[in-house]
């Protein structure tokens, strides 16, 4: 638990320290930014070291937390994403509330492993709220920003709405067994009726909000549109990781051969709708932010498909986590590239704003190219393996299961639609335009952030085992 504790406590300290930070006109904004970012990085690194040197006991026990594969994977994913996000924040964090910003961000990063390691419904819910509450803070951190305020309110209300479903489902689960411990629930879980399935579906609906699955995706485009790029990056990644790990946690306990037959079709339907809605809506967009939001929705659809494969033991256990890792590299890398363009004075609101960007900002454009190719899922990038593994996991059920085959075909079909709109963005980058105003401002932190993402994206293609 030490890595998560480091991050959550460190985040709290940073938040408290914000009271001590000088405000007013004559403060040293640049220094404050640097120190805050460096402290956050130091916390992340020490959390990583704690995680690396942790001795995992042979007997995992039945306590509140349990360090199995899911816990370790979620911790690594959170730290990886956290590293990139902190680097992105270095030059993009709102200068008026640095302490609150970094504090919130670190708490969110630290909460992901809390969710991942949870062996109890209470701690799981605690972890999820530990992600949600800082999200509200971060979304509304710039006062007087109308779009931001709107996004915050929308997110807050819908999040509360979704949490209520989650709690309802959890209370059913508690009702059946009389314990909140997930392992106790699993060993005493005899129910096979509709009610138990219904409880599981309710839990799933509650978590579907975190992962932006249909029909809980509505907030995504509005929020992505109304907030900063870094924040959009945070929103597209951290809640998704936490949501999926929580899904694995809860669904994994409640599943037996009878419930699986009810839950898997529900997941299939959700996944199909999520893919279709994400891709159809994205292909109609000219607004880059909204396009990215829908693309994140579409990726949720593929991830849900990966989850069905995982729940049915059809795939390697790392199929979901490797997809999330590839997703982290490509999406956060793309946001970092956009962030650099914005920091250099370019606009990134509409797809058209990127026209001829290769001639204005070559490094960031190449980074975006790699990330987009990875999102399409072409070889030479991690995205290829990610999609390939999900696809293999889905058809592994074999020819006897027509529904799985149909889902695999639907996924391929969706990948084609997605390629269409990603390619639209990609071709804009290399469009010959009349204005060749080079963007010259250089932000090392953002450059490092997307370089890490690009290198990971390419290296993971050649060494997929470490993904």
């Amino acid at each position, binding site marked *: 638990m030490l890595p998560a504790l480091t991050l959550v406590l460190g985040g709290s300290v940073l938040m408290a320290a914000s009271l001590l930070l000088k405000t007013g006109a004559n403060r040293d904004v640049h220094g404050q930014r640097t120190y805050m970012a460096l402290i956050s990085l130091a916390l992340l690194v020490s959390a990583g070291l704690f995680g690396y040197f942790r001795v995992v006991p042979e007997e995992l026990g039945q306590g509140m937390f349990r360090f199995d594969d899911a816990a370790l994977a979620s911790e690594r994913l959170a730290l990886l994403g956290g590293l990139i996000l902190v680097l992105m924040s270095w030059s993009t964090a709102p200068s008026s509330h640095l302490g609150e910003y970094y504090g919130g961000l670190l708490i969110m990063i630290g909460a992901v492993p809390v969710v991942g390691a949870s062996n109890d419904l209470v701690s799981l819910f605690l972890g999820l709220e530990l992600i949600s509450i800082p999200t509200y803070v971060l979304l509304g951190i710039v006062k007087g920003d109308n779009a931001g305020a709107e996004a915050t309110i929308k997110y807050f*209300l*819908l999040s509360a709405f979704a949490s209520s479903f989650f709690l309802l489902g959890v209370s059913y689960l508690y009702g059946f067994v009389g314990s909140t411990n997930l392992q106790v629930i699993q060993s005493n879980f005899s129910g096979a009726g509709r009610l138990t399935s219904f409880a599981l579906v*309710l839990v799933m609906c509650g978590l579907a909000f975190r992962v932006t699955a249909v029909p809980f995706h509505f907030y995504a485009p509005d929020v992505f549109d109304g907030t900063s790029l870094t924040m959009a990056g945070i929103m597209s990644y951290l809640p998704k990781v936490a949501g999926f790990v929580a899904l694995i946690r809860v669904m994994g306990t409640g599943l037996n051969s009878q419930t699986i037959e009810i839950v898997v079709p*529900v997941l299939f339907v959700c996944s199909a709708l999520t893919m279709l809605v994400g891709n*159809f809506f994205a292909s109609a967009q000219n607004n880059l932010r909204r396009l990215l939001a829908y693309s994140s929705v579409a990726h949720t659809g593929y991830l849900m498909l990966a989850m069905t494969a995982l729940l049915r033991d059809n795939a390697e256990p790392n199929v979901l986590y490797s997809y999330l890792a590839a997703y982290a590299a490509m999406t956060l890398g793309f946001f970092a590239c956009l962030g650099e363009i914005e920091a250099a004075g370019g606009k990134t609101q509409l797809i058209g704003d990127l026209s001829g960007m290769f001639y204005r900002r070559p490094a960031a454009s190449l980074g975006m190219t790699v990330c987009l190719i990875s999102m399409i899922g072409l070889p030479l990038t991690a995205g290829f393996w990610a999609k*390939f593994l999900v696809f293999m996991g889905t058809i592994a059920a074999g020819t006897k299961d027509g529904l799985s085959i149909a889902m695999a075909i639907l996924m391929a079909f969706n990948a084609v639609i997605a390629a269409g709109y990603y390619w639209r963005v990609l071709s804009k980058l290399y469009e010959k335009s009349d204005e060749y105003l080079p963007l010259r401002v250089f932000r090392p932190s953002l450059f490092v952030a997307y370089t890490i993402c690009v290198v990971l994206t390419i290296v993971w293609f050649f060494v*997929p085992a470490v993904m």
Partner: protein
Amino acid sequence: MHSLFAWMVPISPLLGCIACTILSLRGDRKIAHLPAIISLVFSALFTICLVLFGAQGESGNTLFEGYRYLNVGGLTLDISLKVDTLCLSLLVVVTSISAMIAIYSKDYMHDDPGFARYYAVFCGFVFSMTMLVLSHNLLMLYAFWEGVGTCSYLLIGFWFRKPSAAKAATKAFLVNRVADCFFLFGILLLAYTMGQTQGVDAANFFARLDFTNIFSAVPLMATQHPELLTTIGFLLMIGAIGKSAQFPFHVWLPDAMEGPTPVSALIHAATMVTAGVYLMARLSPLTESTPAVLSAVAWLGGITAFIAAWMALFQDDLKRVLAYSTVSQLGYLFMALGAGAIKDLMVVAVTAAMFHLVTHAFFKALLFLSAGNVMHAMGDIIDMRQFGGLRKVLPKTNILFLIGAAALAGLPPLAGFFSKDGILAVLADASKDGEYGNQFSILLGIGFVTALMTAVYTSRAYFRTFHGNEKVPDEAGHHAHEATNVMLSPMLVLAIGAVLAGLALGPTHVLGNYLGQTPALHAHGEHHEELWVMAVSGILAVVGIGIGYGLSKLGPSTASSGAWVAFADFGRNRLYIDWVYNFLLVAPLEWFSRLLGWFDTNVIDSLAMQIASVPRLFGLLGQRVQNGRLPGYSYITAVGIAALAVWIATR
């Protein structure tokens, strides 16, 4: 430790490639040669370490495991390196010559805007080539086979704004593609046949194609599926002759001279084109059971050696003379490999081919670099009609070219004499065989005639360029100058190789004994040194040089008899082979592709565009739901969950 060395051989150029790519993206023109040269020198040093420490081990081959690339379902891909003396001997040639040429290129390419791009692809080529040589698996070899092909394409078309260069690159790529297609079929058929053969462990498609597995399965396949094995042999052979530019695939190599001259020296003379020879040598345990394939190899080699020498006689472009000469010499290598059709001669045949491969790499690279010096001084003019008598202008290049030319002509005791003699001796041995003897007698004759022609065209090119009246084209300006020391010093090393390699490796049996450590090349057959072969080839070299000198004095326009005119006409026009290809293959294909193009734009495209607009349409329709109003969102959500609940309740 050995494992680290073995892995560093390809990884070092890969790092160089990455560094140069980054530099080329930044538009660098100054320091891109540093990472390339350093990485290539390191690669060469690591190779030498491998040789000195005997990385092939006691058993003659060692597998250095890398990592498991993929493990999905029944498919497992392992990336590993296999080191034995056969691959080490080629590896030394590849890495050392590439390091030399990289140093040479530093001054040769220094004014080019694509300086960094040049080095990036250069390193990429060396990476692919070393991986190709070190592959433990036929499929992995194929992957890097394509890798070197791609790099060759990029380098031939390096000056892609020049239409002839772009065309030459496309031609090289497409001709290779046709051959590679057969190669791939051969690999797949081999995997299939192994799966069908009783008693072969055929668990995994990729692991099945490991060289060790293939060779252990060959005897079983030869008894159970002899006709399939012969087909496989032919298909793999086509792959080899495509990359090594043998008849009928030789047409791409002369055009490939459109690339920068150092590239011609490295890829299209010393290393990549020998990949086909390496493949045949590597697969010798397989081809041993298919003598029909080997006799075809010998014939194709013989035909190529002869016709390429014929064409080389009548070229005016110095680089093209060298290109045809390369094709011709590769023909020699294939003739030698073909002699393996006779059971006992396999090992000797492979040894002779590898020997000539090594020496040829040195002197041909030297000749190309000398031609590069000439071209550099003459302002990119390489037509021998426009310059002459350059021995005063380029005194050092004159000597270096002379050494290379003498080695190529086979003048004793230079490298080319010994290695060519080795091949002729193998052919002479083969001609004594009962079954194939007559064939190889004819091939031996072709070998002698070609040796004479080689001496003729080499000396003619030398005397035309460096002797006679001094003539410098206008393009050279007034400062036609000798190459810089940076360019000359690697050439000196190559020249030493061209002089000494033959004497050091051949008569002393150093290379033969070294290659004998490879398990597949263990059994030493009886091989007789034939003095008369040596004497005849030495005399032919001297006579040929004399004739060449005479021809260079006569000049091009002194045709007398009708037969000679026809002979010259055929040679000058490349025996009309390119014309026939154009007429029979390219023109009908272009016509057909125009038809398909019409179909594509008018039918498929319009259909595809209609289909492509559907998702957008759906999206635009759906956007009405996404109206930014919270009550609407939560309403749809609630309805969705209610629908789910009803669905579950009624199941």
